[in-house]
C-alpha cells in the first residue's frame, strides 16, 4: 500500500507537477508578453536590454541598492532565502540520484551537511518573513491569505524534507509529504505570488529602462 502511494507521487504525480510548472510558466510568460504587445506598446518601445540588465544586476547585488541598504535584516534574509531555495533542490544529492535513476543525467552535488544547513537557513528566513507579516505594521497591513499561502508553499518542502532527512516523525509519511509539497511548490509558481520568480525579471528590466533611458536616473 505505502509503496504504491510512493510510486504514485514520484511517478504520475511528479509528471503532473512538472508539467503544470513547465506548461504553466510558458503560458504565463507567453500570455503576459502577448498582452504587453497588445496593450503596453509604449512601455515596450522604451525597454532596452542594456538598461534592463544593468538594473537587474544592481538589484542582485546584496546592499547594492537603496532599498536593500535601508533594510539590512530583510536584505540578508531575502538573499539567503532565495539562494538556498534555488540551490538546495537542484544540488541535493538525493535529488540528483533521482534524476540519474529516472533519466540517466547527473551533476555535482552539495555535501549533505551543507544542504542541511541551507535548508535550516531557508526555514529560519521564512520564519523571519512570517514574523514580519505579523509584527511589522506596514507588512501586516498588506498581508492577505495569498501571501501566507505563497510563504507556506515555498517553505513546506524544506520543512518536510528536513524532517524526513532527520527521520523525525514517520520517515515514510514525511517523504511522501515532502514530494507532495515540492510538486505543489512547482505547480504554484505560475499561479500565485510565486510568479514573481518569472515576472519580476521583466518588471525590473522595464522599470530599469524607463528610469535610465527616459528619466536619465537610477532605479536603485
Amino acid at each position, binding site marked *: 500500500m505505502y509503496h504504491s502511494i510512493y510510486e504514485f507521487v514520484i511517478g504520475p504525480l511528479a509528471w503532473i507537477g512538472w508539467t503544470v510548472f513547465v506548461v504553466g510558466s510558458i503560458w504565463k510568460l507567453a500570455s503576459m508578453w502577448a498582452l504587453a504587445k497588445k496593450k503596453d506598446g509604449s512601455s515596450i518601445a522604451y525597454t532596452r536590454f542594456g538598461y534592463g540588465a544593468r538594473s537587474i544586476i544592481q538589484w542582485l547585488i546584496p546592499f547594492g541598492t537603496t532599498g536593500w541598504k535601508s533594510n539590512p535584516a530583510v536584505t540578508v534574509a531575502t538573499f539567503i532565502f532565495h539562494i538556498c531555495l534555488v540551490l538546495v533542490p537542484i544540488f541535493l544529492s538525493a535529488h540528483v540520484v533521482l534524476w540519474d535513476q529516472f533519466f540517466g543525467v547527473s551533476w555535482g552535488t552539495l555535501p549533505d551537511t551543507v544542504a542541511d544547513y541551507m535548508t535550516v537557513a531557508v526555514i529560519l528566513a521564512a520564519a523571519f518573513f512570517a514574523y514580519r507579516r505579523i509584527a511589522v505594521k*506596514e507588512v501586516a497591513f498588506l498581508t492577505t491569505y495569498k501571501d501566507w499561502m505563497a510563504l507556506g508553499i515555498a517553505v513546506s518542502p524544506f520543512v518536510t524534507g528536513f524532517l524526513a532527512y532527520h527521520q523525525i516523525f514517520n520517515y515514510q509519511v514525511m517523504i511522501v509529504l515532502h514530494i507532495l509539497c515540492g510538486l505543489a511548490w512547482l505547480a504554484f509558481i505560475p499561479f500565485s505570488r510565486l510568479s514573481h520568480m518569472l515576472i519580476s525579471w521583466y518588471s525590473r528590466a522595464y522599470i530599469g529602462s524607463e528610469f535610465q533611458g527616459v528619466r536619465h536616473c537610477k532605479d536603485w
Partner: protein
Amino acid sequence: MKYEAFDRKIEDVGLQDGIAKLTPEKIEKTINEVLQGETGAKLKAYHETCVRCGLCAQACHFYVSHDGDPSYSPAGKVAQTMSVILDKKGKVSAEFIYKAAQIAYTECNLCRRCVHYCPLGIDTGYIMSTVRRICHKLGVTPQYLQDTAHSHSATMNQMWVKEDEWTDALLWQEEEARDEFPNMRIPLDKNGADIMYSVIAPEPKFRTHLIYQATAILHEADIDFTMPTTTGWDNSDMAMYSGDFEIMGRLKRDHFECAQGLKVKKIVMGECGHAFRSVYDMGNRWNAWKDYPVEVVHSIEFFAELLRSGKIKMKEKYPEPVTIHDPCNVIRGRGLMEELRYVVGEICETVVEMTPNREYNYCCCAGGGVINCGPPFKNVRVNGNKAKADQLRAVKEQGVTTVISPCHNCHGGLEDIIHSYELGLELKFLGDIIYANMVKNKAIEE
C-alpha cells in the same frame, strides 16, 4: 477587511457631487472599460507579483510623516485602491470610489521615490495614475483640480487666461522691463526664432515678475527667442493629473504645433516640473510619439548653457548659504541633478546639501496635482510632509537661509511647509537669483 475604515475623509464638493451621480452598474462598466481598454500586462504584473514586503513604505514622505502609518505606504495605498478594484472586478461602491479618489489624488504625488525601494520594480505612480484615470471617467475628481482641467479644455491654458489677457501680460512686462533695459523686446510670434519660451499659466496670472526675469535674462544673453500669442503658450498640464488623458493629448499637441508653426529650433520651458513630465513621459505617449517633434529643454539646462558659454555672467554670487530642493519631475524624472548643481554652484557662494538629495530627494508634497486639489487638502500636504520640514530644519541649523527650487509646484508646497513649520527660510527660483545678480550690460546705469 482590515482597511475598510477610512478615518480621514475630507469633504470636497467635486468628490461629493461626483459620487452622488454614480450607480453600481456605471462604476463597474467604467472600471472595466479602463482596465480592459487602457491597461495591460504592466498593471497585471504589478498586481500579481507585489510580494507585500512593505519595503517601499519608508520611501514615501506620507508614510514617514505620519509616523509609519501603513495606510500611507505606497503598497498600502495600492492595497486600498487598485487591489480592491481588481479583486472585485469593478464591483465597488460609490463610497469606495470617494476613498480611492481621495487617496489617489491627494495622498500620492506620483513622485516615484518608492521605485527606488521596491525589489520588483513596481511603479506605484503608474498605479495611482490609473486609479485617477478611473475616477476621472467616473466624474469623481477634486473640485479645484477639475477646474484647472476645465480651464485647459476651454482655453487651452490652466488658469482661464483669456487671449488678450495673455498678450497684455507680455506687453505689460515688456513695458516694465524697458525702464531697466531700454531696448528690451518680448518678440511675439516671431517666425523662425531659435527658441520659443513657454511658461505655465500661473505666471501671467500670479507671478508676472517671473516673465519679466526670464525675458530679461534672454534679452541680456542676446538670445533669438519668441513667445507665442496663440494657444500653446502654456506648457502646463493638469489634465494629466486629473486623469483626463484626452485633454492631456490635445494640450501637448497644441504646445508642439505652436512651436512648429513658429518654426523655432527648440522650446525652452520655464522653471516647472510637472509640465516637463507631461512632455517626456505622459502626453507624448498618449499621442503615440516616441520622441517629441521639437526639442524641449528645461530652464535648468538652458541656464546651464548660458552660464557655460558665458552668455550670462554673474556680477556677484548670491552670498547667503543656500540648499537645493530637487524637484522630482526634473530630477528623478529627467536626470538634471548635476546640471542643477552646476547652475547653483555658478550663481551662489555656498551650497549645503539636504539629505537625502538628488534622485533620492523627498518630494515637496505639492506635485502630482496635489496642490491643485486646493484648500480642502492643504493640511494633507502640510501634515503629509513633516519629512521635508525635518530635512529643511536640518540644513537651517547648518546656517542655510535660502532654498532654491526650479519648480513652481515645489515653491507652492515648500512655502506652505516653511510657513506652517515656522522654518523661516527664503525660497527662490534660479531665475530670481540669476536676474538679480547677473551682469546687465544692456541695462541703463542706475
